[in-house]
């Protein structure tokens, strides 16, 4: 399909208009021929294609849980036109060759633009720098580096990494979890519920203390720092302080942390086991406020598919993580649009423009205007659904929203002019 005319969509912040796509870009709708393919977008909102800063595609290594193909299909269903694929695959993405391989998988199998994230340290060992520069120079053009899954806890390593990536405008994305305060066995929020349930938990201080340290190092190195999956008010306070001082720090929050609380672990259901953990409702409130006022710059899914046999264990032994690509926008609509905390313009910023900016993706998060790349998602503001975990493009089923009623916003997703998802087809 080379041409598509989208009729009557509400372009975020600009009112209703037509969009004509040809050869992957927006062109003047007046140029539409009489027999051009049309899509009636009456009543729909058009947003720039969503960009996910934080996805686990599991390929290479765990193709039983997800592949680039299935993961990006899920992304397209969720309205995403680009995903950043975290480095904790097998092998780890810590060389140019590994990064190029992931990018090539994306080009071959992907239903969205796949950008590999490079590891900060070799093999995620937290000791030696990985080949950051070579990954940046590779065909994958890596700009985001993260040991996600692990914390870069060595302050000197963090300093070196931040300094090093300044040379090519890279950013270090930190999974903030002090290993001394939050060990490997910690599996939920440390608090009243973990105490009652006899589960080892970890406190907010284990996250905020690392962020407090890292923003200091970011200031020292005059480099870019990004905080993954912020889970607590304490971290928000640190980020707010840092931004006031013009420290170059950005932050993301995952959709599940905007809704789900530590109460979910009361049944010991490993579906709700995630790192960082679900925390009490006061934390959820603080995160929503921070996303609303921009202290948190982006929503990132932390989509973490797991095969059944990795979740069907005792809670303390089950794998960490939840699915998120297909439901992210629905959750944001439900919690932030409906409550008036965010407008559609804000959503475009948090889920497309800012993530693209942080990742330095030049063809994502662009205005829906003539000449720009045609990355767009059409959204129905009113449709609703009951989430069925079996109705999914992902290969995995660890969906925390199963059985809940949420919006069903995504009607169509177009990536580089290509229709990657259409509801009902």
């Amino acid at each position: 399909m080379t041409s598509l005319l989208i009729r009557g969509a509400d372009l975020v912040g600009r009112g209703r208009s037509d969009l004509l796509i040809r050869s992957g870009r927006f062109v003047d709708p007046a140029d539409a021929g009489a027999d051009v393919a049309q899509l009636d977008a009456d009543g729909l909102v058009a947003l720039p294609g969503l960009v996910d800063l934080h996805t686990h595609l599991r390929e290479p290594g765990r193709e039983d849980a997800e592949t680039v193909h299935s993961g990006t299909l899920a992304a397209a269903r969720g309205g995403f036109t680009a995903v950043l694929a975290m480095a904790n695959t097998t092998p780890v993405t810590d060389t140019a060759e590994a990064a190029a391989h992931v990018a090539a998988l994306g080009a071959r199998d992907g239903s969205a633009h796949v950008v590999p994230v490079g590891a900060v340290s070799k093999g995620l060992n937290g000791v030696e720098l990985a080949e950051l520069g070579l990954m940046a120079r590779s065909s994958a053009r890596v700009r985001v580096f993260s040991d996600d899954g692990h914390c870069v806890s060595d302050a000197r390593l963090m300093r070196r990494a931040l300094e090093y990536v300044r040379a090519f405008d890279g950013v270090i994305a930190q999974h903030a979890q002090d290993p001394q305060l939050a060990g490997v066995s910690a599996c939920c929020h440390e608090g009243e519920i973990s105490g009652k349930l006899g589960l080892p938990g970890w406190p907010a201080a284990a996250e905020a203390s690392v962020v407090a340290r890292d923003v200091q190092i970011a200031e020292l190195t005059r480099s870019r720092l990004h905080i993954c999956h912020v889970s607590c008010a304490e971290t928000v306070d640190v980020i707010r302080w840092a931004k006031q001082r013009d420290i170059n720090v950005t932050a993301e929050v995952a959709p599940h942390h905007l809704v789900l609380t530590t109460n979910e672990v009361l049944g010991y259901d490993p579906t709700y086991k995630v790192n960082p953990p679900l925390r009490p409702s006061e934390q959820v409130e603080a995160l929503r406020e921070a996303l609303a006022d921009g202290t948190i710059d982006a929503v990132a899914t932390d989509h973490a598919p797991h095969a059944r046999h990795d979740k069907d264990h005792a809670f303390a032994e089950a794998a960490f993580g939840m699915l998120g690509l297909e439901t992210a926008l629905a959750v944001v609509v439900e919690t932030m649009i409906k409550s008036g905390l965010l407008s559609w313009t804000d959503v475009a910023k948090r889920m497309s423009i800012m993530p693209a900016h942080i990742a330095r993706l030049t063809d994502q998060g662009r205005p829906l205007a003539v000449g720009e790349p045609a990355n767009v998602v059409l959204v129905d503001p009113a449709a609703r659904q009951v989430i069925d975990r079996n109705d999914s493009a992902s290969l995995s089923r660890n969906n925390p929203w199963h059985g809940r009623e949420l919006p069903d916003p995504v009607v169509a997703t177009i990536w580089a002019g290509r229709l990657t998802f259409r509801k009902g087809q």
Partner: protein
Amino acid sequence: MRHLLSAADLDQTQITEILDLAEEMSLVQGRPVKKLPALRGRTVVNLFFEDSTRTRSSFEIAGKWLSADVINISGKGSSVSKGESLRDTVLTVAAMGVDALVIRHHASGAPWQASRWIDAHVLNAGDGTHEHPTQALLDAFTIRRHLRSSTPDLMRFDGKTVAIVGDITHSRVARSNVLLLATLGAQVILVAPPTLLPAGIDSWPVLVCTDFDEVLPQADIVMMLRVQRERMSGGYFPTPREYTISYGLTRPRLEMMKPGAAICHPGPMNRGLEISADAADAANSLILEQVAAGVSVRMSVLYELLGGAE
């Protein structure tokens, strides 16, 4: 009663029934034929993921004396790396057609998860650091007998103070006892160094004190918890010596106990660490009675779960 997962599952009436029945069951021990036919034809599987000869044999004898068929299965190697999930292990055992699964697991919550996957009755024989309801029941049985020596027919523990001393954070015995003793009306005081008190303890129905000597003279029952030597490497307290002097039931502390007060310990004991030899062997120690109570109480619980219609 479908499952026994938590001490909080039982109300006062049920606790009394179980303890009264346990009294009857304790008579079986002295009979020439140690058998009651009540659970004939029922199959009970002890699925123990954690070694425990004592508790497992206790359940085994309890089931056999009620004429049930009892099978012991060691559920090792269910970690993520070994492949077989907890769910697969539980379903495989249940598929053999068992009536009750007695589960002990090193991870909190495993029996709850199991109860969602199978139809059989599930009995929690100890899950991680979470609960151990039959231990709390046998403790209550022992305490009730002790208190009845001065107040016959005593049903509740109102007005009695039970001090539970030791590593509360990692103790499933403590959690179950707190719940059961609260239902029976006792005042529970937890005594531990701050590093061994769990998060959120303010919401528990207990008093908390870090000074053992302040609590000791008030306690009618002093329940000492085992301190695992592994905890020392976690840096919870500086040295065993400091622990014993501050929180151990030493000989001098024995003398500080209230007249008529008694000592409990779930076992196994670290003599010399949390409990001195003098205390373990003292006249007012109920520790051996606790061990003897195990079979009777477990017979009682098995009968309650399996003795009637499904």
